[in-house]
């Protein structure tokens, strides 16, 4: 049973639904209107049914080691890892970070910087604003991938947008990692589809593979998995491959 299974429309090729999505995407005037949507608490029982079906064992290897993973701490101690992993940020990367910092202040946490790579973490309610800023002011214009990582020990799922730029030559080699974390039992994040059209299929994949419901995404539905898939999202750590 997949999470949030009861909320999604299963219509493929419905006439009304894609129309709404594509008009909001193509109409550039509406892009700025999208305000960050606060993650609403779910009234469904999907979270409890999921944990019943496959309880996360504290002794499993991924859970035991995930706290030492980079940036794996919860939001409270997320500032700890960068202190040791950042010797001296390169000047260009530092300039980019300063621009974001000046705009958003403490809501943006810089997790690490190395040449051509910057990882910043924001809270779910700020992500649309930050994404709009890095697109309009810094020139990151597309997403290369959207990866979700499950951290059962923190009871969180991290979603990373790898943003790149085609328009700015000096940013061509850079990847900005825009990350946010959501609660594992009620995984909901605002979609970035109105900021970056290129995240459409990536977010859909993330929804079915990790059960992160992207609020505002027109199609939170099955994509790569079989049509009769009836199990928890497979990239969660409590989904085990049989026989291994």
């Amino acid at each position, binding site marked *: 049973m997949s999470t949030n299974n009861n909320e999604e429309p299963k219509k493929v090729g419905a006439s009304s639904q894609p129309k709404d999505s594509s008009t909001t995407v193509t109409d550039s005037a509406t892009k700025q209107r999208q305000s960050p949507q606060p993650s609403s608490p779910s009234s469904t029982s999907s979270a409890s049914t999921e944990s019943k079906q496959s309880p996360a064992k504290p002794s499993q290897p991924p859970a035991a080691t995930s706290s030492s*993973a980079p940036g794996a701490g919860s939001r409270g101690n997320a500032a700890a890892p960068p202190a040791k992993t950042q010797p001296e940020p390169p000047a260009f990367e530092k300039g980019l970070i300063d621009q974001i910092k000046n705009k958003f202040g403490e809501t943006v946490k810089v997790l690490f910087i190395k040449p051509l790579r910057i990882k910043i973490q924001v809270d779910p309610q700020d992500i649309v604003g930050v994404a709009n800023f890095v697109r309009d002011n810094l020139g990151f214009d597309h997403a290369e991938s959207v990866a979700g990582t499950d951290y059962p020990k923190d009871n969180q799922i991290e979603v*990373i947008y790898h943003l790149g730029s085609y328009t700015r030559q000096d940013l061509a080699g850079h990847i900005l990692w825009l990350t946010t974390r959501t609660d594992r039992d009620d995984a909901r994040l605002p979609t970035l589809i109105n900021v970056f059209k290129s995240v459409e299929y990536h977010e859909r994949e993330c929804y079915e593979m990790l059960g992160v419901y992207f609020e505002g995404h027109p199609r939170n539905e099955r994509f790569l998995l079989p049509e009769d898939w009836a199990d928890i999202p497979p990239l969660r750590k409590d989904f085990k491959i049989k026989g291994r």
Partner: protein
Amino acid sequence: MTSIEEKFEESKRLGLQIVKESEEERLMTLSVGPQHPGSGHFRFVIKVDGDYIVFCDPDPGYVHRGEEKMCEYRNVIQNIPHLERPVIHDSANINYSYSLAIEELIGIEVPRRGQFIRAIASELNRQVYTLYWLAIYGIFLGHSTMFMWPTGDRELLIDLLEALTGARVTHAFNIPGGVRNDIPEGFKDRCLGQIKYLQKRFKEYEDIFYNNPLFRQRTEGVAVLSKEDAIKLGVTGSVLRASNVPFDVRKAEPYDIYNEIDFKVQYMKTGDCFARAYVPLLDMQESCYILEQLLDKIPASGEVRAKLQPNPKGPPGEAYRRVESGRGALGYYIVSDGTPKPYRVKISVGSFRNILALPHLLVGQRLADMPAVYWALNYWPVEADR
């Protein structure tokens, strides 16, 4: 009833499908694929009004095998053979970025000679893939000579790669730390001979295929992807470069020894099917030029791989590395938690990024143009599904 032209203009402007409820019954729904009527292992649902496509909904996943999940159960070396299965014709490149990411996480320096051999293998492999793709593109446009010629020429490169790696398609050759073995004796002369032959053949390809008036009519001006849309949709590889964006990972973020190699990023400005079909040929010509330089500059002797621990592992960390494959940027995002097995592997492949352009391009086209539009996307279903 509104005129048919108006309807497509509207559909095209909105990017995705748009059909009014009352008109549903006029439309015919076709399921293309997933078993081969022109799509490989990929299914997409289209609706046609007459023979105009008014709706397209890609439905990948027919060959989804859970590569990313499998990675979490194997250590970094055990992952090599199965990770190249998504795209066996381009296996050197798909392992290349994996190796780069693992090297960054573990902290390995690749010997200089190893870097050169790695680049040689991946350039040859890119050509093997592109020739295979070109053969398929030819046969789906009804040009059977163009199916046979690249398939035959590809065989020569495969023989070359067999001499280099020991396997015809799935080489498992580019590994973390370098390459599996050194180049055999006489490889350089043989390779240069093949390059010379291929360069001659590329001219013949142009004569018989790219300058063929039938081919030109079927592709020129068909399904134009503008520069703005290409950037917005985040497409990559030849699709992107055909739309006037000169982006190549080898230039943007040179890996290994590519910053010492002199080459141009080939791109075209029109953004139609012809440009998307022609850019791979230009890439192959450029690749021949790169191979000549690589064979010229390679150090005469030295190590080809760095020694690894038996069960290699590094400190906890994250890496995102990408290379330019036959289908565009191919990135690996790997999270390591300090154990020999990766904590999370995300493969960002060009094919998966390019299908977002498929509904955008197909809506408004005629059904007969569907193969020309679809295959020009340089799409490899198995890679997209992973």
